[in-house]
């Protein structure tokens, strides 16, 4: 006999086998999910969920697809959270402090309660990355927020109304485009290709692929492989 646990989905009690995730427990209970389910692997943030264990005071944020059920879990999924995403033209902004002040001024209303960090489903130091954003330290903000799946649980707990994942998104784009060092060998190769340096070689390979596959097979089977 399987070990059955009692969980409460939106307040309604269900008995489900231990070992399931919140997501598979919902399906076991009979839910055919349309909302709140995306990658099922902890990457997309579709399955943001809050829960509390019956009798305890602490409220937890989690990803339903990545969280094993526990006895007495009260579960409410958060399939959508109204994050504020401000629009901008990536080629026209600069990685200075102004851009954050203009697009996300509410980050300066952070009262330091740390509720965002406590709620983070990825165990990120959310308040810290917001602090970096406030100071215009986008490289650090990008690094600290890198694993964010933009589920929005942090923002649901924020008294200052900050949309943390969107702030981090902006910081990462600023970092990726403007702050991280440019890659020379990439630019060189793009130029070489545009200049047509490889055209002849590629045409030759393509015609071999049609007329003399055996030759290509030999090339493939005897190509040297970088250690």
């Amino acid at each position: 006999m399987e070990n059955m646990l009692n969980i409460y989905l939106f307040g309604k009690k269900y008995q489900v086998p231990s070992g399931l995730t919140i997501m598979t427990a919902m399906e076991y209970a009979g839910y055919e999910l349309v909302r709140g389910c995306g990658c099922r692997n902890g990457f997309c943030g579709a399955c943001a969920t809050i829960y509390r264990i019956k009798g305890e005071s602490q409220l937890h944020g989690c990803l339903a697809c990545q969280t094993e059920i526990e006895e007495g879990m009260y579960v409410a999924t958060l399939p959508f959270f109204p994050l504020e995403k401000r629009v901008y033209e990536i080629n026209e902004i600069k990685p200075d402090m102004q851009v954050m002040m203009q697009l996300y001024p509410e980050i300066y209303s952070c009262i330091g309660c740390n509720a965002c960090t406590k709620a983070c489903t990825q165990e990120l130091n959310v308040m810290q990355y917001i602090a970096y954003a406030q100071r215009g330290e986008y490289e650090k903000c990008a690094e600290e927020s890198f694993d964010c799946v933009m589920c929005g649980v942090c923002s649901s707990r924020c008294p200052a109304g900050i949309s943390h994942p969107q702030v981090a998104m902006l910081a990462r784009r600023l970092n990726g485009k403007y702050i991280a060092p440019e890659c020379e060998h990439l630019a060189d190769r793009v130029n070489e290709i545009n200049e047509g340096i490889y055209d002849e070689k590629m045409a030759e390979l393509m015609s071999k692929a049609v007329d003399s596959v055996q030759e290509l097979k030999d090339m493939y089977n005897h190509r040297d492989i970088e250690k």
Partner: protein
Amino acid sequence: MYKIDKLNELAKVVAEKRAANADLEPTRMTAEEKDALLAEFHPDYKDGEFTVLSAGVNKGDKVPTQLAELLQGSSRISASDVDLSAPDFDTDVLIIGGGGAGASAAIEADEAGVKAMIVTKLRIGDANTMMAEGGIQAADKPNDSPAIHFIDAFGGGHFAAKPELVNKLVTKAPEAIQWLNKLGVEFDKEEDGTMVTTHGGGTSRKRMHAAKDYSGAEIMRTLRDEVINRGIPVIDFTAAVEIILDENGKAAGAVLMNMETKELLVARAKTVIIATGGAGRLHYQGFPTSNHYGATADGLVLGYRVGASLLYADTLQYHPTGTGYPEQIFGALVTEKVRSLGAKLVNINGDVFMHPLETRDVTAASIIRECTARDKGIETNLGKAVWLDTPMIEYKHGEGTIEKRIPAMLRMFGKYGIDIRKEPILVYPTLHYQNGGLNINVDCSTDVENLYAAGEVAGGIHGRNRLMGNSLLDVIVFGRNAGMCAAEKAKGVNTPDKLTLNHIEKFNTELESAGVKNETASPMLLPHYARKK
């Protein structure tokens, strides 16, 4: 620690042999050995799991049985269910699917100055792109070239790919990386800007670019952000259920269905791009899958019904290292980057049984052989699996490497008490990728005029097996390409005035005369995981 003592005991055997195993340079298989291995152990070669199509353009070809059921299934609508004379949406380019290919296409169509619109049955970004962990290939290092990339990709795909598509893939690769980088996508770089690149299975140069092990997520979230910045309409939780044609048989829009209210809507367009992704959730041959929830082959069905042919729909990629244990993450992807970083595959005796970086099909077949014919797998309640010796990474490259390079893996197993820095993990092949798909030309056009396809739904780029890192590349290169070409085409097309759904009846008649019509509603849209009581 594993919750099962036996596994902790067996893991010790792996630890004892780690030092010796780390020094080994296992020999690679010869071409003949690979062919024999694949024929005996790769799932694509199990004839009983395939069905020969009796209707449509690919009549006579075999496809996985579950796919045949959908291709020859029943439309969700009949022509009389919708009023085609009063479209709810009018656009130049209609993009079906909100993953990496769809988003790239939308950005390029917008850039070309036409009206683009995305419809997606879930949210933009709920896609396999988001889950691609390992990286994206591009031959941009001095010791590499598009020609070398071509040989790797064409050979890895068993010389079956369409050469002009491979050419496009590899020659546009560096530009794709540059485009992403300019949009703000972060890549792992050295301090001087040099890309940190590694090997993938079947690559002859280290050309795998990554953003830790969130490569796809980093790309997808940036593309999504850009789509929103540009104000491109994204109609979410709305699936396409039929392609609409004009009176001349050219694509002219789609019938959409609101996933929640089931309301039907009509979208009219000058050109249509199918970018619906793969089919992992069909669980071919009962395999678990690494794919996202919506990977149900919808685009193949949509295209097939209006006469777009399929290419290599019988070849699937089983990623060699799906999670074999614990059950909560069974089938979830363990990125190939784990092997790129130096972890080896080990059997129950602690012995390395193959070179860890053979192509994916060969590696998967080899793991299946180890667990079946050779009986050297590790048994759990979920079936057999082999070890992937993750602690070897830090044994070779030093402490901290795992947290820095594959944080998602550390987190995924950590949630279930398994510290991949200290303990090896159990892996077994998982259904990962649809190698084939809608047959496309180099401009992403299909057999149906004004109908385009890009991303995993398209076939021919990877032949019969795709290399790691060529899929993220494919969605960007061909997604952009489809956007540009469909936009260009749309500029020369008038708004279609007569829309029809006559193809539904026509296809039904063909099915009936072939005696294969079944009641399965298709496209499937979502898998049926709710327990039936």
